[in-house]
């Protein structure tokens, strides 16, 4: 088996007496789409925050590409190649679509402590940004203020921003949240195109989308991973069915 790109090792986080992350161990292999599913309150968001560095775990380790990143800040993790999208769309609404992406390009190419030359006229930044926009099908929206995009377009823009950082791992926190059926189809098609080039850790509520996209699925219930396996294995798993359908009292 290949060396995992991301490894969570015995991650624990308590809020008061509540164990929100209760010894989570999980591997994301290079090239796979690994989905985390779980009922509301399972601790998915906290887990994502621990992986991206917004919340510090009480115990356990996060190893990314062979390096321990447990204590790194959010920006440092991003520089290491961990890009994320947010559950609630996070873009700079006052910037043009292009400038949103160009900011991400600039963050990985040379110092941002450059004071004289107008950033908007840096051809290399704009070209790389356009490339990322093209990947998500937003090239014709480049000049618009990002705040005027539709919800689905904003989600796509967030993906373009993530891609522009040239990530080694894409961490997508409910990329389909709030999207209409049409937008969902378009975003799923987009993610399907990306799967060839990227390793993706996906947290998503839309089961249909997860079953269509994921190579492997981990099921998080009350802060614990109760099962990890292929789509078929998870669908057949009795404990998972119990957690979702309430067939069991535990």
């Amino acid at each position: 088996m290949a060396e995992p790109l991301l490894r969570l090792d015995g991650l624990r986080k308590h809020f008061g007496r509540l164990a929100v992350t209760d010894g989570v161990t999980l591997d994301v292999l290079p090239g796979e789409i690994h989905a985390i599913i779980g009922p509301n309150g399972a601790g998915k968001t906290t887990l994502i925050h621990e992986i991206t560095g917004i919340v510090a775990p009480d115990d356990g380790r996060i190893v990314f590409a062979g390096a321990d990143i447990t204590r790194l800040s959010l920006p440092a993790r991003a520089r290491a190649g961990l890009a994320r999208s947010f559950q609630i769309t996070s873009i700079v609404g006052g910037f043009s679509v292009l400038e949103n992406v160009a900011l991400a390009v600039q963050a990985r190419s040379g110092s941002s402590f450059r004071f004289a030359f107008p950033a908007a006229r840096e051809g290399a930044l704009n070209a790389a940004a356009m490339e990322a926009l093209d990947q998500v099908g937003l090239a014709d929206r480049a000049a618009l203020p990002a705040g005027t995009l539709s919800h689905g377009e904003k989600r796509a823009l967030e993906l373009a921003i993530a891609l522009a950082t040239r990530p080694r791992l894409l961490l997508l926190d409910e990329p389909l949240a709030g999207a209409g059926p049409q937008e969902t189809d378009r975003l799923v098609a987009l993610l399907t195109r990306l799967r060839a080039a990227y390793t993706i850790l996906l947290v998503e509520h839309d089961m249909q989308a997860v079953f269509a996209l994921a190579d492997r699925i981990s099921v998080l219930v009350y802060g614990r991973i109760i099962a990890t396996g292929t789509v078929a294995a998870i669908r057949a798993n009795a404990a998972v069915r119990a957690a979702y359908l309430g067939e069991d009292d535990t």
Partner: protein
Amino acid sequence: MRDIAVPVVVLVALAAAPWLGFGGSYETTLMARVMILGMAAVSLAFLVGGAGLVSLGHAAALGIGAYAVAILDAHGITDAARVLPAAIGAAAIFSLVTGAIAIRTSGVHFIMITLAFGQMAFFTASSLAAYGGDDGYTMYSRTELAGTRLLENRLAFHYICLAALALTWAVCAMLLASRFGRVLRAARENAQRVEAVGLAPYPFRLVGYTLAGAMGGLAGFLLANATEFVSPATLSWQRSGELLFMVILGGAGRLWGAILGALVFVLLETWLAQQMQHWKLVFGPLLVLSVIFLRGGLAGLVARRG
């Protein structure tokens, strides 16, 4: 285009003013006040509108620059080659040190902590008995430029202030358009977004805060030379509030709005004070009305009309 055209028109008008019948002592003194406070307001607009750092202590940078001139004057140092770097450097160092703490906070806390640091500077200046304490300090002479008394020349001083104002505006505009400014502008709107692409906003904000302080120091250098007098009032929080008001009146979204803001603020204040004794009773409500009805400030008004 308008972001260049309007400020250029204002600067050209200021350049031409001495030749259009506004060359007297009274007029040039008034215009110097407009330009110097305009400079301080532009550097504050860079912080407020650009970086989203609403400082209520910007007068401290102005006052520290002015006090550097006065203190050196008291020790017989009046050479611009030493006084100017001292004024800019002192204000920049103050901003760097206080900014290092203040920028760890945000929102109302940032406003309050910058206010607190400004008041510390104010009370420090008040306690400088050797330099006049509460009463302030009258300088022996203006700063000398390369051994000449060029700053004493009314017209020369007018154009030096104008050049400094143009430079401050151009530098702030350049900074905001650069990679550095892009990070500041993005972080103002969405700091988490900036972090998520791999950049920590803190060092960018601190450098921006320090640069704005340095520009405030430059304005302070000119202010001391304009009035040949400094007093703790220069560092008062009321002055910080006035600067902030000029920025808001002008329109915080555009740098050059601060120049308009300073112009209208100073002229209105001066004119009203000549009309009546209790002019502040009129001035205050006018300011309130301008905030209510001038969305986007004077700059927004100009941008919509043109």
